[in-house]
C-alpha cells in the first residue's frame, strides 16, 4: 500500500514537472511564432469564424497553407482554445503542450503494458516517464505547434490501446481510431503508422487470431475514416505528394550530377553496360538513403550538435542529453535480452524511415516519434547500471548529478540563450513590426512588405484580419517557388513583392506608402527611423515611410 502511494506521488510529481516545463511562459518561449505555427493558428481562426480556411475551402481535409498541404488535425484542435482565449500564441501552442504532457503519461503506461511480465517494469516505466518529461527534444516540440507532438500522442495512444486490447478486445476499435487520427496529424505518419500497424499485427498475431471479428471491424472503421483523405488525394494529388516532392531525396540533383561526373571520367573504351553496372541510380540513391537513415543514429547529432535546421535547434547541445549516451549504449545491450524488444526496435527503425527519403537530414522533426523508444532504451540502461553496480545510493547520486547539470544547462540554453541570441531562428520581429505598423497604418495608402518568411500571415494573425474578407480579396498566383511554397502577393492595402531589391526600387518608391523591409533585404547604407530589433539589439525589420 505504501509502495503504491509513493509510486503515485512520484507519478504526480513528474506530471507537475512536465506541466511546468511545457506550460509556463508558453507565449514567450520560443520567442516568436514560427510561420507554420501562425499559419495553422490563422487557419483555425478562419475555420472557426467562416467554416473555411484562408483559401476558402470548406472544412478542409488538408490545409493548403503555403502550398504544403498541412495535415489538418492540429489546426482543428486549436479552434476551441482560440474561441476561449482568443487568437494568440497561447491558443496556438496549447494543444501541443497539453498533448505533450499526456504523451509523458502515455510513456509510463506503454512501458508497463509492453513489459507486463517483468517484475521491474514499474521502475523502467517511471524512468521512461521522467526521461520524456525532461527530454529537450520532447520539450522543444511540446512548446511549439509543429504538428509532430499531436502525431506522437495519437501514435502512442494507438499502440497503447492495441497492447491493452489483448485483455480488452473492444479497445482495438479505439486503437484504430487513434492510428487514423495520427495520419491526419502529420505527413510522415502516412508512412509510419501503416508500417507500425503491420509490425504490431505481425508481432502479436497469435493474440489477434482470438479476436478476428473485432480486428475486422477496426480495419473497416479505419478505412471509412481514411476515405476522406483518399478522396482528397484523388481530387488533388498534392494533398499527399505536394511537399514530399520538394523535400524528397530524388528531387535533389546532387546524386545525378555526381553520377554524370563519374561516368565522364570512365575510359571511353569501357563498355556502356559495365559503366551502367557501376554508376547507376539504384546503387547511388540506395547508398544515400541508407546513409541518411544512419545519420539519425550518429552520436554527434544526438548528443552534441542536434538538428541544424531552424527552428528545431537548441543552441550548444544535441537533442538528447550527453549523459544519455552511456545509458543508451547500455540500454541497447540490455534490450537485446528482453521480451518486448522487437516493438521498440521496429518503432525506432520505422520512425526514422520517412526522413531517410528526404534530403534535409538528420531531421529531428520528421523523426520525432523516435523519442519514445530512445527514452525507453535510456531508462532500461539507467536501471541496468543500477542493478549491475548494486550500489543504489552511489548510482542515484551520480545519475542525479549528471542529469541536474544537464537539465540546468538545457534550461539555460533554451530559456536564456535561444531567445536572446537566436531569436531569428523563430522569425522573430514580425509581431513587433505589425504592432508598430498598426499604430500608423492609417497614414498610408500602401504597406509594402518585401517577401521574407511569409510576412502576410503575420499581418493576418496579429491584426486579426477578417477571414471572410481575406478569402475574397487575397491576390495569389498559386505558382509555387523552387521550394514548393505558394505566396500571397497582396490583400487590402498590403503588398508582398517577391523580387524586391532596394537598389532597383529606391528611385521610384510609391507615394504615401510605408516600406517594411526585413534585414535580409534591407540596404546597409540607408538610415531608417523606425527599427524593430532582436532581443540582442540587432535590427530585424526596418520601416521606411515614403510620404
Amino acid at each position, binding site marked *: 500500500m505504501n509502495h503504491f502511494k509513493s509510486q503515485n506521488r512520484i507519478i504526480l510529481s513528474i506530471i507537475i514537472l512536465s506541466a511546468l516545463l511545457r506550460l509556463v511562459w508558453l507565449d514567450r518561449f520560443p520567442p516568436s511564432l514560427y510561420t507554420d505555427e501562425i499559419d495553422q493558428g490563422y487557419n483555425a481562426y478562419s475555420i472557426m469564424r467562416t467554416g473555411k480556411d484562408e483559401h476558402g475551402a470548406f472544412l478542409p481535409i488538408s490545409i493548403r497553407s503555403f502550398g504544403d498541404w498541412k495535415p489538418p488535425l492540429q489546426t482543428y484542435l486549436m479552434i476551441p482554445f482560440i474561441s476561449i482565449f482568443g487568437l494568440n500564441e497561447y491558443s496556438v501552442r496549447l494543444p501541443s503542450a497539453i498533448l505533450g504532457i499526456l504523451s509523458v503519461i502515455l510513456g509510463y503506461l506503454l512501458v508497463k503494458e509492453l513489459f507486463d511480465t517483468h517484475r521491474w517494469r514499474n521502475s523502467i516505466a517511471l524512468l521512461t516517464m521522467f526521461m520524456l518529461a525532461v527530454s529537450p527534444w520532447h520539450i522543444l516540440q511540446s512548446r511549439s505547434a509543429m504538428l509532430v507532438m499531436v502525431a506522437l500522442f495519437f501514435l502512442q495512444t494507438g499502440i497503447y490501446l492495441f497492447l491493452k486490447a489483448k485483455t480488452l478486445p473492444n479497445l482495438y476499435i479505439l486503437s484504430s481510431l487513434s492510428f487514423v487520427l495520427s495520419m491526419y496529424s502529420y505527413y510522415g505518419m502516412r508512412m509510419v503508422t501503416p508500417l507500425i500497424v503491420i509490425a504490431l499485427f505481425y508481432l502479436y498475431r497469435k493474440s489477434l487470431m482470438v479476436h478476428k471479428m473485432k480486428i475486422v471491424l477496426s480495419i473497416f472503421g479505419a478505412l471509412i475514416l481514411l476515405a476522406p483523405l483518399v478522396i482528397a488525394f484523388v481530387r488533388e494529388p498534392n494533398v499527399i505528394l505536394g511537399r514530399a516532392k520538394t523535400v524528397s531525396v530524388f528531387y535533389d540533383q546532387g546524386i545525378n550530377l555526381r553520377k554524370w561526373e563519374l561516368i565522364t571520367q*570512365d575510359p571511353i573504351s569501357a563498355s556502356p553496360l559495365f559503366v551502367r*553496372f557501376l554508376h547507376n541510380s539504384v546503387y547511388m540513391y540506395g547508398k544515400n538513403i541508407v546513409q541518411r537513415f544512419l545519420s539519425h543514429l550518429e*552520436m*554527434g547529432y544526438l548528443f*552534441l550538435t542536434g538538428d541544424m535546421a531552424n527552428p528545431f535547434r537548441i543552441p550548444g547541445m544535441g537533442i538528447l542529453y550527453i549523459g544519455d549516451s552511456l545509458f543508451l549504449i547500455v540500454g541497447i545491450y540490455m534490450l537485446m535480452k528482453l521480451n518486448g524488444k522487437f516493438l521498440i526496435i521496429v518503432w525506432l527503425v520505422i520512425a526514422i524511415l520517412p526522413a531517410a527519403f528526404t534530403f534535409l537530414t538528420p531531421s529531428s522533426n520528421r523523426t520525432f516519434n523516435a523519442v519514445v523508444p530512445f527514452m525507453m532504451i535510456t531508462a532500461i540502461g539507467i536501471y541496468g547500471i543500477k542493478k549491475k553496480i548494486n550500489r543504489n545510493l552511489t548510482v542515484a547520486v551520480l545519475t542525479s548529478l549528471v542529469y541536474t547539470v544537464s537539465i540546468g544547462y538545457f534550461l539555460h540554453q533554451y530559456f536564456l540563450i535561444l531567445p536572446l541570441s537566436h531569436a531569428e531562428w523563430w522569425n522573430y520581429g514580425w509581431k513587433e513590426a505589425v504592432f508598430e505598423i498598426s499604430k500608423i497604418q492609417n497614414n498610408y495608402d500602401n504597406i509594402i512588405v518585401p517577401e521574407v518568411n511569409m510576412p502576410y500571415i503575420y499581418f493576418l494573425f496579429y491584426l486579426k484580419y477578417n477571414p471572410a474578407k481575406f478569402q475574397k480579396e487575397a491576390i495569389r498566383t498559386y505558382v509555387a517557388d523552387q521550394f514548393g511554397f505558394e505566396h500571397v502577393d497582396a490583400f487590402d492595402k498590403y503588398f508582398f513583392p517577391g523580387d524586391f531589391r532596394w537598389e532597383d526600387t529606391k528611385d521610384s518608391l510609391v507615394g504615401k506608402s510605408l516600406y517594411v523591409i526585413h534585414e535580409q533585404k534591407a540596404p546597409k547604407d540607408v538610415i531608417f527611423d523606425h527599427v524593430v530589433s532582436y532581443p540582442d539589439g540587432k535590427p530585424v525589420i526596418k520601416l521606411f515611410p515614403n510620404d
Partner: protein
Amino acid sequence: MHTTILLVLILIFVFISRLYQISLIPPLTPGTPILLRYLNVLVNAAICIAFYYYTKKRTQNRKKAILAAWVYSVLFWPFEQGRIVSQVNTSILFLIIYLIQIKSGSLLYKIVSTIILIGLLLLTYPQLWIFKHVLPKLSFDLINNFFSIVSFEFLFFKNQYFWWGGVRDFGVLNLAFLPFFLIGIYQTIFDYDRQIIFGSLILILLTASSPYFPETRELYLAIPFFSYLIAAGIYKLQLKKNFKRNLFLTGSFIILMYELCQYYHYYTTHYFMEVRSNIYKIHESF
C-alpha cells in the same frame, strides 16, 4: 589442412589485389623507390598471417581465425594502405606479433615486450603524436572527434577526414559488413573480451586526442580489432543455420561482392585521377 588452403587463397588474393599495377596506381611521388611498395605488400600479407594466428590463439577457433584474416584482406583501408609506402602498416604487424606473444610470460617479460614494441613503433611510425606531444588535446574537441570517428558516416560512407586514409567516397569499412560489425560488438561485450574492447577504445581515444586530428592515422592500428569484431558477427550469425540466416548471409555476400567491384573500379579509375592531380601536395614517400 582445409584452413591452410583457405589461408593460402587469402594470401593469393592479397598479393594479386595489392600488386596489380602497383607502380602506377596510385602514382609514385618523385623519389619513391618502388621496392618500398613491394615490401609493404609483403608486410600486408604478413599481417594477414599474423592476424590469423592471433585470432586462433585468442578464440581457439580456426573458423573464426580464417574469417578474421579474410575480412582484413577485403577491407578498403588495408587494401589502400597495402599499395603505398605506409609506415603505420608496419606498425600493425609489430602490434599483432606483440599481442600474440604477450599472453604467455612473466610480468618482466611483458614489460620488456612493451618497451620493445614502443621502440619499434618509434622506428616504424615516428609520426605517432605521443612521441611528439606529452599531453593530449583535452578539450571539447576530444568528444567531438571521438563521435566523428565512431560515426557511421566515417566508418561506412565517407572517409573525408583522412587524406592518408584513402578513398574518400568510401568509408573505412565495407558497408556490407555493417550488420556483422554491430553483432560483433554486441557479442564481444557479451563475452567481455577485454583486449578487443579496450584495445579498440584506447586506439580510438588516441586518435581523437591527436593534435593533428583529422590528418592522423593512429586509427589504422585499430583495423585488426574492427576485423575481429566483423568476423565475430559473421561467425555468430552462421552458427545456427536456418533459412532466414542463410538468406541474409548470402544477400550480404552478394552486396559485398558488388561493393568490392565498386571500390576497385573507383580506386583504379577515379581515385587514381584524384591522386594524380594532387600528387604535388604529397611531400614524402608514397
